């Protein structure tokens, strides 16, 4: 699993649980590809919808419980 954290339990795109294969799992293959062109929307730890702000050059996504992820700290796949 190559999400931002090995502790991630939810898909950052669709919010559904990640199986043992993580985001590489078959049911999230579409999500993983889409994340090349989308910021994460769901917190990978608690599944809350994050507050996402996008500018032409970067983005930030914030979970009220788990804090902020930015483009520079995010490695989706």
């Amino acid at each position: 699993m190559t999400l931002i954290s090995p502790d991630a339990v939810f898909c950052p795109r669709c919010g559904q649980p990640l199986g043992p294969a993580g985001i590489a799992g078959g049911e999230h293959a579409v999500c993983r590809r889409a994340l090349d062109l989308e910021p994460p929307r769901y917190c990978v730890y608690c599944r809350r919808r994050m507050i996402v702000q996008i500018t032409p050059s970067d983005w930030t996504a914030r979970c009220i419980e788990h804090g902020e992820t930015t483009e520079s700290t995010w490695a989706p796949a």
Partner: protein
Amino acid sequence: MTEQVATQPTTATTSPTDAAADILAVAREQVLERGERLTYDQILAVLQTSDEQLEELLAIAHEVRMRYMGPDVEVEGIISLKTGGCPEDCHFCAQSGQFTSPVRSVWLNIPELVRAAKLTRDTGASEFCIVAAVRGPDAKLMEQMRAAVAAIKGSVDINVAASLGMLDAEQAQDLADMGIHRYNHNLEAGRTYFPNVVTTHTWDERWETCQLVKATGMELCCGGLVGMGETIEQRAELADQLGELEPHEVPLNFLNPRPGTPFGDLPVMPANDALRCIAAFRLALPRTILRYAGGRELTLGDLGTRDGLMGGINAVIVGNYLTTLGRDPQEDLALLDELKMPIKALSDTF
């Protein structure tokens, strides 16, 4: 009656293949040589050309662009001032509050806007467009725009554009007085397909706002999306209606199906159809800025992006979009450099 019969043989003897070959000759003569836009029927014929004719079609569209618009490419950055929670129901849009899209409602503050404007300017862009997901601006949004435009103009040398939904005449004038250089309001779809895309307002209301914008002297930016399930006829209709409207700029979006929206499960448009659209829009709008807007990364990829720039496109949005991400701006700038298409200078935009 007799007259009608007498005129029929010319069309009746023309096979579809002849008609398709003809349309390229017509485009060359009518648009390239004489500078007259294609009619609805001609746009439709362009959209019906074969894959084998695509290269020639794009070459003609490119020649038209070079002759009437020159080699410059206008570069723009866009930013969302207010994201999500929109009361309207545009079926392609992740920012509508009517669907279960994962996009949460949020406002950007003015220092962030100024920072984004600076970074956009650093790419060489001449336009910075502030967008809000609203039906139309209320007094609070107008005040925020006033403050934002003043802050940006005070520290960044860039044209400020806006896209805040439907306007009344007074709001349009206020925005012009604030120094908004260009206002975006898309037709989104051809008139007959529009009710399948939006039910909370009408195509005519959009047309009306476009006319109000033009009346203030602001430049009008007005385009739409293709690949939303419309027929080819309805696609031609959008290009033709834009030709009639004569906006300064047309942003061309290819549907990027967003999860949770009514169009979320539509297929991505085939690249060749998208390229035919680019050429058709250029031939319908020979003297208009034709901009790559959303969806090009998904629909066209790197190779198709290049083909579109060599097939009628003369403006790009650099970097990210409102709810999705774009290519790295440096990749686009390197491509323009390679194609020997200079970035349009700010001083050339007035």
